[in-house]
């Protein structure tokens, strides 16, 4: 088995969920997601398109700030990434703050495009490295974007998975619940249970999150590192080098 870092594990886990897609978009301040998308593109043999916001060479948008949102509404974006200061067991995400709105105890930057993209992009992957009862809560204090909607609400998109620093959950839209799929090295089913504030289901065969195969690692530490360096030079230099 190839040796890989924790970051490389996460990049690989994301890339695996992007296989076969035509177009993956990556928001700002998302080096791991960006590297994963570029890895998936490298593995697709030219069939996948990746848009990295903040990149010059991997961002083809020419119609201004609205184009990402219009493009998603046209059904031309298959996957996107969101996070959240709080994420709850129904897939609701909170990027606004803790406490009773509007006089919050803790204020975060704001919802960005989440209240829209979460509805329109079919495969939204939630990524939040900190896995704790502080971040994974029973009920978010503020719903920047809801995880699910009533049947009559126009919603081709929604949560597909939640990846943290400890584990990978898939989201079941019918049950409106997360299901624990795999646990990363150095964590355990018990560790995940102790650090998750919401209830979730368990896959029958929870195993270790598989690491990136050697071929992926070679791409990650070569071509993908060079590509992501344009947008995230420090990340490329520190996180994507052979150990």
């Amino acid at each position: 088995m190839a040796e890989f870092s924790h970051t490389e594990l996460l990049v690989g886990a994301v890339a695996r969920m992007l296989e076969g897609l035509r177009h993956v978009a990556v928001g700002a301040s998302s080096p791991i997601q960006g590297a994963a998308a570029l890895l998936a593109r490298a593995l697709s043999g030219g069939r996948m398109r990746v848009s990295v916001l903040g990149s010059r060479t991997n961002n083809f948008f020419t119609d201004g700030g609205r184009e990402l949102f219009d493009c998603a509404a046209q059904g031309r974006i298959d996957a996107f990434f969101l996070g959240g200061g709080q994420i709850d067991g129904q897939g609701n995400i909170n990027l606004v703050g803790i406490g009773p709105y509007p006089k919050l105890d803790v204020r975060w930057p704001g919802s960005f495009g989440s209240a829209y993209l979460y509805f329109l992009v079919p495969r939204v992957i939630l990524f939040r490295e900190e896995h704790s009862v502080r971040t994974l809560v029973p009920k978010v204090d503020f719903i920047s974007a809801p995880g699910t909607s009533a049947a009559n609400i126009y919603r081709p998109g929604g949560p597909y998975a939640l990846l943290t620093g400890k584990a990978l959950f898939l989201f079941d839209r019918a049950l409106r619940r997360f299901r624990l799929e795999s646990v990363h090295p150095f964590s355990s089913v018990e560790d995940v249970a102790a650090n998750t504030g919401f209830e979730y289901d368990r896959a029958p065969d929870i195993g270790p999150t598989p690491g990136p195969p050697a071929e992926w690692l070679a791409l990650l530490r070569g071509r993908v590192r060079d590509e992501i360096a344009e947008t995230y030079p420090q990340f490329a230099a520190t996180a994507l080098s052979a150990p």
Partner: protein
Amino acid sequence: MDAPFLSLEDLVAEIPDGIMLAVPPDYSGVAMAATRALIRRGVKNLHLLAVPTSGIQAELLIGAGAVSTLEAAAVTMGELGPAPRFTALVKSGAFALKDSTCPAIHAALQAAEKGLPFMPLRGLIGSDILAFRPDWRVAENPFGDNDPVVLLPALRPDIALFHAPLADRAGNVWIGRRRELMVMAHAARRTLVTVEEIHDDDLLADERMASGTIPSLYIGAVAEAPRGAWPIGLEGRYEADGEHLALYVRAARTEDGFRRYLAEHVLVERRAA
């Protein structure tokens, strides 16, 4: 009728207190030199509209007490973390905050661009963003069947203010791919622009430049301001000054630190590094 060229001080004198001022995101061309001049002139009571997010520009205006209402999808210092004055003052209620989402701000500006009273938008239903926006409506899609959709009233800024690489002598402004600046200029009653440099040729005469140019019809006035986005970067021209931005974030953790930053870097006019 071409757009007049003004000094930076005369340009910001055209921005009255109490207006709705639209400003672009950090990746787009932020008129920071003009923002410092605006704070020096003591602007008050702004309804600041971030299109759709803002960073140090909103920070300085908020911290200086110039903002009474802020509408934004986010205020952030990016990789440097939370925006300290925004975070501190929003909790104190020093200004009213209209939490929004990026496409809602784009859509409401496009409504103004088209002279429409409102624009529909997908998404949003079930979010607390919508729950706390009594100015937005949910209506039935008349072409659907039990299909609610959000309607956003037009946002027509009094003034749009941004920084661009080039203006020609007629006041046409080149923005390249940064089309959100064009929507802002179309939507706002008046648009004030600072530019890196004046371009001697007619931007509309060269088809390659014309496609990325806002015609002077939409431009109220232009001021030349080399490195006018500093300490933010300008795509294709210069990078953000990360060291200065980090210095700001450290200083602005406290009210006192912010006051010192303001005194040293804003209230005293100084050339950008």
